[in-house]
């Protein structure tokens, strides 16, 4: 009798690569650390340090980098948009404290498609290969306006997709839409950073049992998304998630046994392997 037990497959992602130089430093520290269990790196195309991140991604052909589309942070890659940006050329800001993304209502669909093409081209040019998955920085592809052009691209290029959760939770219509299209995608996503001033997200350390249990209670492939990085004044001023990014790095150095629990409980894979 075959008694082999198959472990649940989990993609373990470090998020926001390219957001700032201190975030890059932290993620590179993790990449090079012997205890690192991350298998996936989300690369922003338009962050302060995206070019540096792309250069690193280009060199690290052994690692799996996804293209993390950005629609409400920094400046777009494309130019001349009439509906996506403010008068200074920055993307219109969503209110993440209230999770109010109504700015997307004003976005013109053609301009969204154009910007998706621009960000995809940016990745191909700067990283020198296709992304292993398509994701969005704040899960904006939970909105059909963003989701549909991204799924079109995913289908055309045969690239997996992160589940289009909303506020990082469930989002039935969007998720079933992706399933119906027959795309390869993760089924659930868990943010393992005590973000947004502690209101959402799991702590990798303090909530280890809860997180493992919650993941095990879901079907299919799950993704753990971790915001990792060092924190300088630039990042502190820029992001509501700053010091929280230190937890994963601290675990690498001080408590690797906690990370080993995740690696033991799950089959940790990258998007390139699903």
């Amino acid at each position, binding site marked *: 009798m075959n008694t082999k037990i198959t472990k649940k497959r989990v993609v373990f992602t470090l998020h926001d690569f390219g957001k700032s130089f201190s975030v890059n430093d932290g993620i590179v520290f993790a990449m090079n650390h012997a205890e690192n269990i991350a298998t996936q790196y989300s690369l922003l195309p338009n962050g302060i340090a995206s070019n540096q991140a792309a250069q690193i991604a280009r060199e690290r052909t052994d690692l799996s980098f996804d293209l993390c589309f950005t629609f409400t942070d920094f400046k777009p890659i494309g130019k001349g948009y009439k509906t996506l940006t403010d008068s200074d050329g920055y993307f219109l800001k969503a209110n993440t404290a209230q999770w109010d993304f109504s700015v997307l209502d004003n976005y013109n669909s053609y301009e969204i498609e154009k910007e998706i093409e621009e960000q995809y081209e940016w990745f191909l040019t700067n990283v020198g290969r296709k992304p292993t998955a398509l994701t969005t920085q704040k899960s904006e592809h939970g909105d059909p306006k963003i989701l549909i052009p991204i799924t079109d691209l995913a289908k055309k290029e045969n690239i997996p997709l992160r589940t289009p959760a909303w506020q990082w939770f469930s989002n039935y219509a969007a998720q079933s839409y992706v399933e119906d299209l027959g795309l390869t995608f993760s089924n659930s996503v868990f943010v393992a950073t005590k973000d947004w001033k502690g209101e959402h997200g799991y702590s990798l350390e303090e909530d280890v049992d809860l997180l493992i249990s919650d993941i095990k209670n879901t079907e299919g492939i799950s993704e753990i998304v971790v915001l990792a990085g060092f924190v300088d004044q630039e990042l502190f001023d820029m992001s509501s998630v700053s010091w929280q990014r230190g937890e994963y790095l*601290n675990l690498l150095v*001080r408590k690797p046994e906690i990370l080993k629990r995740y690696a033991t409980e799950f089959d940790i894979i990258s998007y390139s392997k699903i």
Partner: protein
Amino acid sequence: MKKLVIVADDFGTLPSINSGISFLYKNIPTLEISMVTKAKYSKEAATMVKEQSIQNIGIHMELLGLEDLGRPVTAKDYIKLFKEKTYEEIEKIASEELKAFETTIGKPPTHITSHKGIHGNFKLLNFIIAYAKEKNIPIRKPVTALNVELGNQNYAAEISLSRAKLKSTNYLFAHMLGNNLDKIKNAFITDLEKVNEGETAEIVIHPAFFDERLLNYSSLNYLRTRDIDLFTDQNFIDQIKKMGFKFCTYKQI
């Protein structure tokens, strides 16, 4: 009125600690900054004191520093030190530290605190009480016990300080660990609810930005940036003020 002193420890230890404390000082002008004199970056810290005209600068006494051992100092190192050294030997080391502070900063400290609360040991406490009395300097409430397995109480040190009639606070609060900001805020609010009208409290924090050097140096690393987040949150500061607290320097208590 209730008075609250916020004290930032470890100034001088690392560049990320220096820049984090300096950043927070701009947000809390009453912030008392506690500086180490034996560390590699104490000089950088002293330069920042001059350049930013920081007035509330006290000493964070170490007796043993990173440079002495080539590694961060632990509570066990201090237990050994106090066991092996006489009163006179500890006094000599402490005296040199205070002298170094006065030379670098150009004036006596505005307060005295210590690394891991080591001034809870009479070998150090008796000496700094004498020094503080002469110069009228407040001392942090010496609540810490190095042998924590016996319970974190230090009545003998506290009563000695009290009888010396030196300035100190009625309460000392700290929450160094924990990454749920709301829980930490609530814990501080619960602490501060204990303070009665006319009493004083100190909150100890460890502000720093977070870099690789800090990560490798201390188990208390990224949570130091949490302390910056906490005390740049105007809602939290206003909540404390609404409880009847006035933010003060040590001199103002």
